Structures are given as C-alpha cells and as structure tokens.
C-alpha cells in the first residue's frame, strides 16, 4: 500500500476511536464534554515521554491509556459537582488548562514539543494497532448499549433527576463513562504520538476537541454507526477535495450549524427518519 494511503488510514482510525470514545461520554451518558483533546493529549504526552526515555512501547501504550483515564476520573468527579452548561464550560476549561500548562513546561518540550519519538513498528503494524483500537472501542460501545450499564447511561442522559430518584447511583455511572471514554482517547493519543513521532501542544487544543465533537454530532450523537461514518467522512473530506483543505474549519463549522438546524440527530437521525417513511 502507498505510504500516503497507509498514514491516512491510521489518522482515520485515530479519529474514529476519538469520536467513539467521546460518544460514550456525551452520547450515551449525556455529559457534554468540550475538552476531549486534553485526554488525547495526555495519552500522547505521557507515552512520548516514556518512549523517549527508553521504556518499551507496550508499557507506554498502557501508561498513556491509564494516565488519560486518571485525568478522566478527576474530570468525572467534576461532573458530579457541576452539570450541563457548567460541565461543558468546565471541560472546555480543562482543555485550555492542559494546553496552557504543557506549553510552559520545559521538561515536556514547551512550545516545540517532543521530537524523535521512536517508532515501535512499521506503519502497517501501527495501522493494524489503530484499527484494533477502533474495533475494541466499537465493541465496548455495542456491549455497553446491550447491558444494564447502557440502560443506566440512557436514563441519566434523558433525565438525571429521575434516574437518581429511582435509586440509580448516578455518580458511579458518570465516572465509569468518563474513565472508559478518556482512557480510549488516551490510547488514540499514544498511537498518534508514535506515528507522527513529534507532538506539539497545539495538536491537542480546543479546536481539536471541537473537531471530534463535530464528527460525533454530524454522524449522530448517541449512534455508533453514525459516529463512525461522521468521523470517516470529516477526516477524509479535506483530503479528498484538496481545495476543501483551505476551507476546513469553514466547512466543519458550517456543517455543525447545518446539522443542528436540519437534523439534530445527525446522519444517523436522518437515515432513521428516511427508513421510518
């Protein structure tokens, strides 16, 4: 396979994994997070630091996921204190804080970031790993949807107060959603760091969080198939149409507005309505 196509498939897989993991938090459990890139970045930075200092890839992979999950747990604790609009702003704050902190840390490379991250395997190997992560995340989401955990998430997403009064331990469910979703985002970050071999703070900024959110809402928040479709389309769109690359943010932004106005359920919602006819 052509090297360009191969690296493209890796980036598609990374974005699908990110979108699916955000979908678990925001779609399934209804906790709108505007800071997903912070967890993606935590995985990338932790694993990059470890790999550069000679730790084997398998260890840095797991460590990246765990570190992101721990940060996700902390932000999940915040979601027990603040809700809805307040939570959205808090998660946005976490993203700005992450970038603002990393940028000033000499030991994390500051503005220049971390370079010369060793590549643990061939591009084909990394692509396989990335798609295994996608498959595992998708499988996790399907399994959750069919389990009591998924029912609990849906109840919280629809009416948190009602879920509490029915005796559901809302806090535990939210924490579970945050930890699983952010750990998966962290692993996506590990793969990104070891494919790009170079990471800078801006690669994990608020715009990235919004791009991930755009993939989720364009695909259809809460839908597994829709979100995969949304992530693939929005990643490929700027690549397929070269002219579109210059207008990437314009297109992303306009799509987000258009989808919200026309079909808040995204592509998945539109398909469902067509089928119902």
């Amino acid at each position, binding site marked *: 396979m052509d090297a360009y196509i191969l690296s493209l498939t890796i980036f598609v897989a990374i974005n699908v994994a990110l979108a699916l993991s955000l979908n678990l938090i925001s779609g399934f459990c209804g906790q709108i997070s505007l800071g997903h890139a912070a967890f993606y970045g935590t995985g990338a930075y932790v694993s990059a630091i470890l790999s550069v200092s000679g730790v084997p890839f398998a260890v840095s992979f797991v460590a990246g996921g765990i570190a992101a999950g721990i940060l996700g747990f902390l932000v999940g604790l*915040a979601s027990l204190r603040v809700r809805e609009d307040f939570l959205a702003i808090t998660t946005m704050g976490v993203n*700005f804080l992450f970038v603002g902190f990393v940028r000033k840390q000499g030991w994390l490379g500051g503005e220049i970031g971390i370079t010369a991250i060793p590549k643990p395997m061939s591009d084909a190997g990394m692509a396989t790993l990335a798609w295994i992560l996608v498959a595992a995340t998708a499988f996790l989401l399907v399994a959750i949807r069919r389990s009591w955990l998924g029912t609990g998430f849906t109840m919280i997403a629809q009416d948190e107060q009602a879920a509490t009064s029915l005796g559901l331990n809302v806090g535990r469910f939210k924490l579970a959603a945050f930890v699983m979703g952010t750990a998966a985002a962290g692993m996506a970050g590990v793969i990104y760091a070891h494919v790009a071999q170079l990471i800078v703070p801006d690669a994990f900024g608020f715009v990235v969080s919004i791009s991930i959110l755009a993939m989720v809402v364009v695909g259809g928040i809460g839908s597994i198939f829709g979100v995969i479709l949304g992530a693939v389309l929005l990643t490929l769109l700027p690549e397929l149409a070269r002219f579109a690359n210059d207008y990437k943010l314009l297109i992303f932004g306009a799509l987000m507005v258009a989808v919200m106005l026309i079909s808040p359920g995204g592509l998945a919602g539109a398909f469902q309505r067509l089928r119902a006819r």
Partner: protein
Amino acid sequence: MFHLELLTVGLIQGAMYAMMALGLTLIYGLLRILHIAHAALFTLGAYAGVLAANAGLGLLPAAIVAVAIGGIAGPLVYVAIYRPLLDKPPYVALIASIGLLIALEDGFRLVFGPYGLSFDNNPWFITGWMIGGIYLNAVQAAIAVTAILSIAAFTWFARRTRAGVAWRATVTDPAMARTFGVEPDRVRIMSFAIASMLAAVAGVLIGLLNNLVEPTMGSIIAYKGLAIIVLGGLGNVPGTLVAALLLGVAESFGQTYLDQVLDRDAIAFLVLIVVLMVRPQGLFGKAG
C-alpha cells in the same frame, strides 16, 4: 508602583471583558444559551471599524458604523440560528454556536486575509499621559470610559425604560410577561441587538489597543467570556461585572508571577475550575 500598574492594566482588561460578558449573560439569562458566537460579532465589529476608519472616516464615526453593523448582525444570528433551536436540548444550540464561530472566523480569514489589518491612522494609540506615575494611552482610557458609560446606560435602560422593564419581566417569567402584552421574541431580538453592539464596540477598542484586527482575535475572548459568566453565576449581571474585573486583575498579576508555569490564557480556566469545585453555582450565583 509596579503593582499599581498591574492593577490598572488588569482593570482595563477587565472592563473590556465586562463589555463582552454583559452581552453573554443577558442572552444566557433570557434564553439559557451559551452564546459562544458572541465573539464573532466582536471580531465583525473590529473589522467594520478598521475598514471604515481606513476608508477615511474618523475613529469615532468608524466606531459608530461598527456598532450599527453589530446591532444588525446580532439579531440576524438569533433569527437564523437560535430561534429555530429554542425547543431543542441545550447542547444543540451550544454546538451550533461553536460551529458558527469557527465558520465565521474562517470566513474572516478567507475574506480579509490571515495576517489581519492595522489602522492606517490610529492617533489614540500614540497619545498618552502619565497619571500618578502610570502611563495610560488614549485607547486604554477610552476602554475604561466606554465600559463605564455603556454599563451605566444599560442599568438605566433596564431600570427606567419601558423596554427595560419588559426585558426584566421576560427574564423572570416569560409566560407571565406575555399575558401583560410583552412579546418575548421582540425582547430577545432587542437583547441580541444590545449585546452585539457592546461586542462590536469592544472589538473596535481592542483593535485600536493592539492596532491589529485579525480573524481569530475573538476566539480566546469567546471562551473566557463563558468562564466569566459562569464565575459570575450564570445570568447574574452584577456578579458578571465583578467576575470580569477580578479576572482582568488576576490575569495581569498571573502573567507576571505564574508565567513559568501557566499560559496567561489558561489562568481564567484555572480560576474557573477552582471556584466551581468549591461553589458549583459560581461566585455570586444563588445556591440550588
């Protein structure tokens, strides 16, 4: 003396935040929408101002043009984007608002170029005075004066005019206001007009202060503005004004003393997260 200077710079920055946050909190109080795209109107105002000024108008007429354009564009955003989404869950309007900001910012970049525009003639930028040992230029003075005047005018409007009473009634109880003959939609349009005029004038002033108008000049303010209205206790006008000034001062001190650890723009969010964990309803919000 150095601290006094930091305080002054912080208060002026805070005054600018106050002008932006006042509009955001007005809209939140009325519609429960986090109007992130407010910053696009700030940038639009700045572009209108710099283009009008460079076309040969004086600075004051250019600012008036900018305010007029803001006053028209704001209600258009409400009618085109928010009004159709009012009965949807809150995240729908939030995502549409973020999308609108990103699209408009990219639009500004495509139309006016990525490097931004400067004022050909910016006399306020180079005029300044030493007051009590602190140097203040005319733009900084103008920001302070404009903020005080516009907030005073807003308070007068809300307390003393018919339209202001209708606005307060709609915030408190839209259904009851309607039975007294207040048309909520007209109140909303009016609020968007007022908020956007404030954003536009803030945009012109910041354009003058930096002598640069660029496509992304609003993005940091967009997000910080939200942090401020949350700190102030969403929808609480006096709380928002205090939070804006506090943040301005916290930033100017933080930039000096925390620069080794944290980016200036992250300070707002550090304060925000710490406050929210202690008081989830914000500094001045009502509990429950």
